[in-house]
Structures are given as structure tokens and as C-alpha cells.
């Protein structure tokens, strides 16, 4: 709990000028001896740290302290839909085990659904200490309200210290609902998670459009809540023997009431999901004109690759949202990925940097994408691509 205080007695026209200059949000103004901070302030504290000493100070306010010893365990929300467990849940269990080894906390799985027996067995094999199961006909399909009720019941019953949720469509709908209900923080799309010995979860995610990493903590609230996207962490190897405990919880039906009635559920036409693609050709704004897309498509066809793109090309309507790589699109883990005309924002890189072979073509040799690429190609794509396509077509003649 912090608050900015302006010490009027120390204000001079000169140090006001300096404060106005260093505020990155332009929210400090000065008029006739009066310094004001407007609502553009983001409490970044730069005026305190780098400004003239003592003019603006950050005041720590006393607050009720949470008893961290009361909140024990790292819980993973298991996404189970249409009889299938989402792989992100396995990845999170692996991460939870890693984090728990620092604080010696148990790892819990929360499973909400119907006919979940097979899923429970699978969970135990991944080394979960306790599986809390809310198995009920009324929970057959995902509905936010009853699922949030069950999830909240788990939190109040078990008091876990941290909760990890997959940043899937369901996770993005359920986690905020539950976090708001128990009045705690929620950090979206973490790319790195670390554990402090006092059980504070360090959550790192790209911020400010992706050019900055933010390290976020929830120092005075429990549980600590975060979401993580699919394929950010690796899937753990199952144990040959299992010894976890299964706890079945039946909620009374009236706790599972619902103002939503599902009319139809349709499986989308099976299309190859970008997240699963082995070979990808990704194109960005550097492609210039739409005409140049033809040679990118040709390369993708020649390699049997999936075509994908960066966010600006979705925003300008050239590609569909599901073809986008990056934090606001898909995360991929390809065997081979070409990035063409992509400068490489952190958000894009976060969506593809785990790929095994990254070949980046960009005409700016200083582009950040080359920090991620295994092979950086500083060249004009309009020259390199047609030539490369021809080379691949005559494939057999290449001498390595």
C-alpha cells in the first residue's frame, strides 16, 4: 500500500521543471507555486527515485498482513472438456512440482467436470500429492458460474498459496471470475515463474506492448493467482508408480445454479492447429506490400509449412487471428520456423522462441529478432525469397 506525497515547502520552479521532464506519463504539472499530479499517474515512482530529493515521496501505508503460513500448497486448475484433459494442465503440474520443491509445499490438482475417473488416474501419474475432484452431472460442460462456485469452494477449503491456470479460453474466463471473488491478484500470461522461500510467487510477463518484462508479486494477498499459456513450460514425464490421494467433493446442487443454458456445442472443423505445427513460415510487417505475400506462400507450400503472421497483419486484415504468433496469438514450438520481415517484438518472440531451429530474414541487421534466431539472415526478402524458392525447387542439386 503506497501513496505519493508532494512536499509543497520544497517546491521551486526549477525542480518542478525537472519533475515535469522526467515523468514518463506527462502527468505532473506546475502552476503558480503549486505542483500537481493528475490521473495519468501510474505510480511508477520515477519522480521519487530520480527526481529532486524530498519533493515527492512514496509513503508506505500500514495494512493488514496476510498470514502466509496459513496458505500452503501449489494448486493447478485442470482443464477437462469433452472427456479430454488439456495438455497445458500437465505442463503446469510439472512447473508446480518445481516451484513446490523450494518451499516444500504439496502440489494439488483441482478437477471440475463429469466422468473424470480416467483423468484422475492420469493426474496421479504426474506426481500430484492430492487431487480435489468436483464430479457432478451438472458440471458436464464448462459453465462459468457453477465452475467458479466449485473453484471457490476449493480455495476456501484448502487455502492454497499459489494457483496456476492455463491461459486457454476457459482459463481466461474462469480465473478472473474466481480471483475477483476471493479479492486477490491475477497475473495473465506469465512466461517465467519463480518461488521465493517465503512462498511469494514471482510472476514475470512481458508488459508495455512487450518491450519490457515486468516482475510481479502478490506480497500481501493469498492465494496468488496466475495464468500461463499452452507450450510455455514443458510437459513433465509421468512417474511409474503413484501415491497421491484423491478427495471427492460433492457440492449441493443449489450451489451449482446457473443463469446460462447451453443450446449447442459444436466441435470446430478439424484444422491443423498452429500450436501443433512442426514447420512454420511466419511473416511480418516488413513484407511491405500484399503482393509480396505470394512468395512467402510459395515457400510455405514448398516446405509443407503452416503460414502464420505477426499481430499487425491480423489488424490490417491480411490474416486471421488464429494464424497469429505471439502473446496475443498462438505460442508455437516448431522444429523449424522461418520469420520473414519480422523485427521481433518480445511479444512475438515469447510465442516462438522455444522453436528448435529459427531462421530469421530481415533487412535490418540490428533487428531484435536476430537475438532469438539460430540463423540470422540480414538480407532483402524480395531478393532472398525468390532465389530460395528456386533453390528448394531444384532441391536435389544442392551440395552441402
Amino acid at each position, binding site marked *: 500500500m503506497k501513496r505519493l506525497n508532494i512536499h509543497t515547502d520544497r517546491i521551486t520552479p526549477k525542480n518542478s521543471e525537472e519533475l515535469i521532464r522526467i515523468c514518463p506519463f506527462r502527468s505532473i504539472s506546475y502552476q503558480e507555486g503549486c505542483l500537481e499530479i493528475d490521473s495519468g499517474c501510474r505510480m511508477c515512482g520515477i519522480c521519487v527515485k530520480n527526481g529532486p530529493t524530498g519533493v515527492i515521496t512514496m509513503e508506505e501505508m500500514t495494512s493488514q498482513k496476510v498470514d502466509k503460513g496459513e496458505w500452503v500448497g501449489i494448486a493447478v486448475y485442470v482443464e477437462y472438456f469433452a472427456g479430454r484433459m488439456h495438455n497445458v494442465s500437465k505442463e503446469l503440474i510439472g512447473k508446480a512440482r518445481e516451484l513446490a520443491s523450494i518451499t516444500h509445499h504439496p502440489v494439488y490438482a483441482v478437477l471440475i467436470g463429469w466422468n473424470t475417473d480416467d483423468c484422475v488416474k492420469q493426474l496421479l501419474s504426474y506426481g500430484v500429492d492430492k487431487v480435489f475432484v468436483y464430479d457432478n452431472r451438472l458440471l458436464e460442460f464448462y459453465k462459468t458460474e457453477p465452475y467458479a462456485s466449485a473453484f471457490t469452494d476449493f480455495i476456501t477449503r484448502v487455502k492454497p498459496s499459489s494457483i496456476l491456470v492455463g491461459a486457454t479460453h476457459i482459463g481466461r474466463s474462469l480465473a478472473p471470475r474466481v480471483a475477483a471473488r476471493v479479492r486477490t491478484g*491475477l497475473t495473465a500470461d506469465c512466461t517465467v515463474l519463480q518461488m521465493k522461500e517465503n512462498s511469494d510467487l514471482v510472476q514475470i510477463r512481458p508488459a508495455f506492448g512487450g518491450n519490457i518484462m515486468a516482475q510481479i508479486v502478490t506480497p500481501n494477498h493469498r492465494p496468488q493467482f496466475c495464468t500461463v499459456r499452452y507450450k510455455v513450460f514443458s510437459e513433465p514425464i509421468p512417474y511409474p508408480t503413484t501415491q497421491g490421494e484423491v478427495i471427492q467433493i460433492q457440492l449441493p446442487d443449489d450451489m451449482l445454479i446457473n443463469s446460462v443454458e447451453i443450446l449447442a*456445442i459444436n466441435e470446430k472443423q478439424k484444422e491443423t492447429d498452429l500450436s501443433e505445427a512442426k514447420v512454420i513460415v511466419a511473416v511480418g510487417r516488413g513484407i511491405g506490400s500484399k503482393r509480396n505475400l505470394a512468395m512467402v506462400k510459395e515457400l510455405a507450400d514448398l516446405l509443407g509449412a503452416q503460414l502464420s503472421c505477426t499481430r499487425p497483419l491480423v489488424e490490417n486484415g491480411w490474416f486471421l487471428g488464429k494464424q497469429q504468433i505471439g502473446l496475443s496469438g498462438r505460442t508455437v514450438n516448431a522444429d523449424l520456423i522461418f520469420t520473414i520481415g519480422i523485427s521481433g517484438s518480445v511479444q512475438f518472440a515469447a510465442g516462438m522462441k522455444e522453436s528448435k531451429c529459427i531462421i530469421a530474414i530481415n533487412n535490418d541487421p540490428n533487428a531484435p529478432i536476430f537475438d532469438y534466431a539460430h540463423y540470422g539472415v540480414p538480407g532483402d526478402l524480395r531478393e532472398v525469397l525468390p532465389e530460395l524458392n528456386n533453390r528448394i525447387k531444384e532441391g536435389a542439386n544442392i551440395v552441402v
Partner: protein
Amino acid sequence: MNIIVCIKQVPANTRVEVDPKTGALIRDGIDNKLNPYDLYALETAFLLAEQGETVRTLTMGPPQAKEALLEAVYMGADEGVLVSDRRFAGADVLATAYTLSQAIKGLGPYDLILCGKQTTDGDTAQVGAELAELLGIPHAGNVYAIQKAADSRIVVSNTLENFTITQSILLPCLLCMDGDINTPRLPSYKRKISLFSQPVRELTLDDLEERDERNYGLMGSPTQVERIFPPQNIHTRHMLKGNSRELTTEIAGILKKHRYI
């Protein structure tokens, strides 16, 4: 149907760097724009509202966020509400959703709240669902189609990764709209000059029902940014050299080595 659309003003250019020495943010330009994902929510509202029904638009932000509200008004919204106060500064997802919920409680009856999928600056896509929770109304995310229905209900189609769901939801409710679902209209100059005054009003903390400062801004935020730092890269640069022809030869060699050709 009376609709409230929640919008946000975002930086037009998200290029921000950290000064490695001072830790200060270096922002490139201060131009702002209306969050592009909110345009689809606004267009949805204009298509749903019939004669005599209102579309109000709400934002929390600094004084200049009024520009975003005016843009929405010139597109067709009846009124804009700016929730602005220094005591809201530093709000995380929970404090933002709480502030919006307090503002909406003071706006009188509504049937539907629409939000965009996410903003292009914070990118969390969480405020909509938290807002619905704090207002005690149902919500759905990733909505791509809406139909009106009888008995104070609405029929909504939304997507999960591999499924689409069509559901009937009791009003009032909150919907987070997907992008690319319609073609948002442009702000109308004719509408701009036909308005006698700018229908935008401002709310501060003192106008809200709950006035305890500790629930707002940085103080009301469970999460805290401990530090910010420039991203680190795992690879060392490995640059190929030569003219286009030589570069191509090298790439072809790599592809052959990995058996892609």
C-alpha cells in the same frame, strides 16, 4: 436494450524501452488511440440498440482519455463517462475492475455491458470477467455472434479453442467480444458538428458509492510490479554473411542438413 460499452485509450505506439542505468521508462511519442479491439464492441452495440435505446460508453483513465470517449460518441454513442482521479493511479486488474464496477453501479439500469477482447497495452484480457463478477452478473468471453431472445435473455455464440458454444444467458450480462466480427463504422463528422455540446461527463472517487481510497489505485491492487527490465535473449547472434545469392545458398544448405529439402 440499453448498453454500456467499456473502452480504453491506449498508446498509439507501444514502443517503450527501459533505460538500463536509471530503470526509467523511455516512451516513444505520447500519441494515443482508442483500443482497436473496443471498436468491435462499439459496433456490436450500435447494431443491437434500437430506436430509443441508449449506448453509453465508459472509460477509466487520465484526463486525455476523454478523446477516446468522444471518438465513440462520434461513431454513434449517446454518452461518454470518464472515470478519472489520481487516486485511481497504479490500478491492477482487480482495482480497475472494482473502479469500473463502482462507476457502473451509479449509471442506472442497463441490460448489457460489452467489452473488447483485450487491450493492446495491458494485454491481460481479464478486466471484463472480473468486472462481471464484481457486478454479480453472468459473462461470456470470445463472443462472435449475438441474437436477441425473449424472457430477458440473449443468445450468444462464443468460441473455445476447438469448440463453439451457443448459449442463452439471462440479462443483464457482460460479453467480451472477439475481434474481426464486424466492420466498425468510422467516426462521423456530420454527427460531430450536429452535437451542440460534448456529451461526456466525468466521475471522480467522490462520485462513487464506495469512497474508501484503499480499494482503488495502487492501494487497492493486490499485485505489485517489483521491477521492470529489458528482455534478455537466450541465443547469441549467429548472422549469415554475404550477398543475397550467398545468403540463399547458406539457407538452402541448412535446410538440406536438416532434411527439409
